[in-house]
């Protein structure tokens, strides 16, 4: 099992969720986050006073995936979140030791 953490542009959130649903992934946790990367920030101007905003809003998706679906899931995210412009985000894949469904006590891939 793997934990996929994807940082994406906020407006791509629904596209990614749909793409993941199509390959049979039913559970995603989304968090609104702020990040700093190659996209850099932007400036805001109030009565002529310029403020540089370094951290831009992004959405962080966390998805627990069975080993067999990892490549497909990554492919789905890359396809659906891609705009071709700087700032599309990143995907991190980490090993996932255990998953437990709280209601039933099921563990492992059964619980995903």
């Amino acid at each position, binding site marked *: 099992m793997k934990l996929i953490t994807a940082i994406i542009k906020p407006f791509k959130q629904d596209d990614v969720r749909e793409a993941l649903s199509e390959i049979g992934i039913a559970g995603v946790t989304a968090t609104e986050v702020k990040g700093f990367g190659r996209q850099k920030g932007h400036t805001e101007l*109030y009565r002529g006073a310029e403020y540089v905003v370094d951290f831009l809003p992004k959405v962080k998706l966390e998805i627990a995936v069975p080993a067999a679906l990892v490549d497909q899931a990554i492919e789905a995210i890359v396809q659906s979140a891609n705009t071709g412009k700087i700032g599309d985000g990143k995907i991190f894949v980490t090993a996932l030791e255990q998953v437990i469904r709280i209601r039933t006590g099921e563990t492992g891939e059964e619980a995903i």
Partner: protein
Amino acid sequence: MKNFLQNKKSVLFLSLALLPSIATAAELNQANTAWILTSTALVLFMTLPGLSLFYAGLVRSKNALSVLMQCFAITCLISIMWLAGMYSLIFTDGGAIQSFLGGLSKAFVPDMGTASLTGDIPETVFFMFQMTFAIITPALIVGGFAERMKFSSMLTFSGLWALLVYVPVCHWVWGGGWLAELGVKDFAGGIVIHVTAGISALVTALVLGNRKGFPTTAMPPHNMPMVVTGAGMLWVGWFGFNAGSALAADGSAGMAMLVTHISASAGALTWMVIEWLRFGKPSVLGIVTGMVAGLGTITPASGFVGPAGALVIGVTSGIVCFYAVQIVKRRFKIDDSLDVFPVHGVGGVVGSILTGVFAAESMGGLGLGEVTMLYQVGVQALAVAVVAIWSALFSYLILKVLDKVMGLRVSEDEEVQGLDIILHEETGYHNL
């Protein structure tokens, strides 16, 4: 009768056109009364919640409540002081010192009943209407020292300032004092309100010093929708402020409302266009700030000029106030936090002087009577200069004394934590 004439804010009452109405002025006019009752509510609405929301949105979230609290507490304090003696010191005859200050015969208004009249409206209504002006003036200054002043010092300063600056200046201009005798024209408070508040805000900013981190740290408005909401309320309320200052429901009030609206629109569009050209985008804060500049600048002129004059005054306010903000904040790095001086002070000065120009019949105004434009502009400039110096001097003295007695600022640590939690033990926003 003489006294009543002096009490009128509008010098218009002296003009020939209105002489017939003076003849019947001893009787209650219900139409006028209804309009001034309405205007009173509109002007208080400018402070609560208009200006309060405008200012609260402009500060950082940790100080939002402190600004709301300051405007609220000032409203209550000035109201009681108004009853206790401010009204009397401004609007009663001061005898030997009448040129400079009124008397105390109406302290706590012992003789004012439901039948008392000021002109052709109940004195109670006149009392309340004028009170709302005395309230908003110190509330405007809040923008100069926002986000760093102790609440106790703020309240003491506001009370003393009302007594030592607002009372005499208002008496000079509207209470039959020496500036009124010179023939100064200030229809709704360009000098009495915007010059006094604007200059004093600058002095408070200089005496208190900059907010910690200014100008290197970002201090953007924490809630722009709140700013725009408050600004919209100011605009609507300003109809009571300017059109109410006619003290009658008549054509003068109608013209004052019209020119007020035109100037606000022109100021807003001008500021927006300047930003668009200079920075590439028209900003929301820019358009609403231009509107406030347009409103402040037309205020002294509102009962004296025509629509064309209002258009010129509005456009001028947008240009002059925009550059004033850049100069004060960016070049001189003075932390007049919410730009009270460049918007209200500079707008008040410009409007008060332009009143002398655009009130002339040749400029589409309602006429200057027997004096020349040059004389009128001279009187306006003299009044602005004297009032500016008086406001600056007394604001400075009050602040210096308070600094010795009770201190003006919260500590650096407290400033970083925010005034809401430090001074009021509350926070405006909870992340529940």
